[in-house]
């Protein structure tokens, strides 16, 4: 075995896009594998959990974990990786803030099981069976499944996280910068998010078109608006763009494709709740001052979760919705 630094890569409650992002480094990945040994990467290579259990504590220089934690198995493995790794990187929006799977915090285990296993139109489940942590197969073999938690947790609510690599998925440049910082020993202060702490508006190609006094008199939804490609500030048209409350570093790929920012890089340093801080900024630029006129502007905004918490519900102050029976 070579004496190159060893790393591990693991996925939890995520879509696989983060693994894709690593592959998207293209030839850049050759530099990465030339510099490190990948010791654990269940998606791409054949390793067993036991291989990790046999490692010495701190044997891995770093583990990159993507996805939020929803299952007991994920909790066990990330705790194991914490023990075996010197550094833990929360990789991508889901590990960082809960991500899109974190929107499941608008439901709970019972309501999800009911919808998926009992009500789903395409199901054939006459006994209304839902997943059990233990069951008997053919009356004699015990089968086990991980426990499905009530909520989705960002990684740092389960284990201590050293650094965050933001993005859904992290852009190749963000990943390469992170790898370079690790290998050259130039990591910033522990707990940092490895992207600039400027807001996206600061680096937005449409910045110049933002009027001096921005006001909103109606909220529009992007798919019902036919001038997305006019190159002007989205907020001016009443399209919710998370730019003011989102960290830059993504290369403005959405904006360049004529779509507003949805906030995947998370809030800049010092902001506790990305959605609330965006709501605060947005509400204060509503144009009318009379109560009933304010109300009619607000009526054009039918939802506050998808626009403001697309990626960050589990890392928000309130964490989840309260279910009826609670």
């Amino acid at each position, binding site marked *: 075995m070579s004496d190159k630094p060893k790393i591990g890569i693991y996925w939890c409650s995520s879509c696989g896009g983060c693994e894709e992002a690593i592959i998207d480094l293209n030839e850049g990945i050759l530099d990465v594998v030339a510099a490190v040994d990948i010791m654990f990467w269940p998606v791409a290579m054949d390793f067993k959990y036991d291989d990790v259990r046999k490692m010495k504590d701190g044997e891995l220089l770093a583990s990159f974990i993507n996805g939020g934690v929803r299952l007991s198995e994920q909790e066990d493995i990330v705790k194991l990786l914490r023990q075996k790794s010197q550094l833990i990187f929360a990789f991508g929006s889901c590990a960082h803030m809960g991500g899109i799977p974190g929107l499941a915090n608008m439901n709970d285990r019972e309501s999800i099981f009911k919808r998926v296993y009992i009500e789903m139109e395409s199901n054939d489940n006459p006994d209304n069976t839902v997943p059990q942590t233990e069951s008997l197969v053919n009356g004699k073999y015990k089968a086990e499944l991980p426990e499905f*938690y*009530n909520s989705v947790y960002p990684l740092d609510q389960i284990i201590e996280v050293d650094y965050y690599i933001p993005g859904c998925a992290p852009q190749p440049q963000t990943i390469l910068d992170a790898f370079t910082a690790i290998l050259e020993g130039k990591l910033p202060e522990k707990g940092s998010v490895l992207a600039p702490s400027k807001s996206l508006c600061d680096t937005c190609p449409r910045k110049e078109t933002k009027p001096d006094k921005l006001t909103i008199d109606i909220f529009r939804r992007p798919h019902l608006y036919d001038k997305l490609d006019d190159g002007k500030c989205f907020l001016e048209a009443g399209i919710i763009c998370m730019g003011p409350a989102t960290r830059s570093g993504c290369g403005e790929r959405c904006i360049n494709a004529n779509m507003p920012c949805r906030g995947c890089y998370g809030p800049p340093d010092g902001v506790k709740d990305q959605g609330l801080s965006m709501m*605060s900024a947005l*509400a204060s630029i509503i144009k009318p001052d009379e109560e009933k006129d304010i109300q009619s502007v607000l009526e054009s905004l039918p*939802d506050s*979760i998808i626009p403001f918490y697309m990626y960050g519900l589990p890392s928000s102050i309130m964490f989840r*919705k309260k279910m009826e029976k609670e």
Partner: protein
Amino acid sequence: MTEKGFEPKIAAFICNWCSYGGADIAGSKRLQYSPNVKLIRVMCSGRVDPQFIMEALRDGADGVMILGCHPGDCHYIEGNYRTMKRHGMLKLLLKQLNIEEDRVILDWVSASEGEKFAKVVDKMNARITELGPLNWDKVVSRT
């Protein structure tokens, strides 16, 4: 769901120029009002970031009041209009998270309205007593 002996915990963000004056008058006049409201003086109701409100609810408050100058009377001209707009938008989030709208109220109390201050505080206390504890810790910790 009212628990026996439940005493609501209410956080009130009140503006320095009007509502704090109103609270002062209520005190000088020896008006009786519910003691379970914790007053937090801010320079303007427009300073009340929605994050303050949600953090209060998350950390154990059963209700939050924001009291400011009457519309048109703001010391900083338009601070209370901003509050009005933010509160309007926040109500949508409260509803979607299944938190009763009445747990976060916005009202106007001028520096001379000691009676009104005592009245809105009592009204809030009665309403929260009726709604019962919020207990968000329990919502978060359910596994």
